[in-house]
């Protein structure tokens, strides 16, 4: 799937500090590396705030350059191979360390307990992103709760509460997406961004093919489509604050 095709990507919660072992939550926010030239030093980096998966990769890359003893790093995701690669560009051998659930989040499910290399590629697709065969994103619906049951002296009143709108989304995953990737939960809970196609600007009332960026309010069970279970499909209800 091309990088500008339909896709869904999760946000990782993070609240800093940007380096050091200590953080309140390290579920999928913190990446660590040990460099071959300084095997006694483990360098931890994380974003200061919640970030989209691909933004998080860039933040890690910047912080690793700043805080590691020697390495100049690249942290990249390839939409075609659906793999994350962590590498150095200045010949520094290193080993990644995956605190919390980061191994699933990034797809580094292989054994990382030994060895040094200048480039490490995850053996699995990251649970943070899925390239889609297609996606139907219904236009926004106003999610205000309105009470029209007030009549004063024969006059009608519509009182209203609410501050968000919702999108009904139907995801069709490509064959390379496994049920385990969906079941990991990052794409079906919390904050996600869904691109409908190549439009890299946000959805709005005048840009209805833009990406939507919101919180998963409800998710159906994944459904296996096709005669021999070729595809997984999933319905989501996405809420967008306004």
């Amino acid at each position, binding site marked *: 799937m091309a990088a500008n095709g339909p896709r869904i990507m999760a946000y990782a919660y993070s609240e800093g500090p940007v380096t050091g072992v200590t953080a309140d939550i390290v579920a999928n926010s913190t990446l660590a590396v040990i460099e071959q030239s300084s095997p006694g030093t483990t360098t931890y980096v994380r974003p200061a705030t919640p970030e989209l998966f691909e933004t998080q990769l860039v933040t890690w890359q910047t912080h690793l350059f700043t805080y590691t003893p020697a390495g100049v790093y690249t942290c990249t995701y390839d939409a075609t191979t659906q793999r994350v690669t962590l590498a150095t560009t200045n010949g520094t051998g290193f080993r990644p360390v995956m605190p919390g659930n980061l191994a699933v989040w990034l797809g580094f499910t292989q054994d990382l307990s030994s060895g040094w290399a200048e480039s490490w590629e995850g053996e699995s697709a990251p649970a943070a992103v899925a390239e889609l065969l297609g996606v139907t994103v219904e236009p926004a619906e106003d999610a205000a709760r309105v009470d029209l049951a007030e009549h004063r002296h*024969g006059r009608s009143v519509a009182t*209203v509460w609410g501050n968000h709108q919702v999108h009904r989304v139907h995801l069709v995953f490509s064959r390379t997406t496994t049920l385990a990737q969906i079941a990991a939960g990052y794409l079906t809970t919390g904050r996600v961004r869904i691109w409908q196609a190549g439009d890299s600007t946000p959805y709005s009332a005048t840009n*209805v093919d833009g990406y939507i960026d919101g919180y998963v309010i409800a998710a159906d069970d994944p459904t296996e489509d096709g005669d021999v279970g070729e595809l997984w499909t999933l319905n989501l209800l996405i809420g967008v604050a306004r």
Partner: protein
Amino acid sequence: MLALQMNNVDWVEAELEINDGATTAQFYGSSVRMDVASVMDELVTWATSTFIPTFLWAWEKDTSTGGAILTLSATGNFTLEATNTDAQTGYGLNSGVKASASSHTFDSAAAGTWAPVSGVSVKANLRVLLSGDACGDGAVRPGVPGLAHYRPTVEAIGTALDAARLANVLGDASNPRRASICQQHTASWIEVAVGEVARNPAGAKHYRFRLEVSGEAV
């Protein structure tokens, strides 16, 4: 066309300056929260009594937003300027003076307007009775306190753009939600309170909208 009262426009502040070649005067809405159709009615009445020409207003669907673009015309030439942000947002006018002409088409969709491709269907705009002390079977009794409001059926068919526009304007609607709906066959506007808005697919690329509304809104 449906015109909602919006939170993001203060019509008392919104200043529209008109010059007919002899007189320059400014127009302001009569209250803070108004729908743009009511504002235009007031504007036409005021302008016709203030200036020499007779004024008229009209609207047409804006195909790029799903809203409605307004036109103000007169029997003589005049200049037009929305002098502040409230006026520019409310009327859909850019800043600056519009050169003297007998008709001015505004620059963008007016605030709170929704003009789906099918038009807005208003059916059975009749009084209904609630149950209560003054309720009676049979004939509807207008004017009985607490009873006999209008309860029309309001429907429309629109595109994804119309769907997005409606959600967008509802997000900035004032509280309580009031709107005016153009009933084209009677060339009149009905004022309603807008309740739940339901949307269903109507074919592959269109949506059917059903609006819960109630007439004689406060």
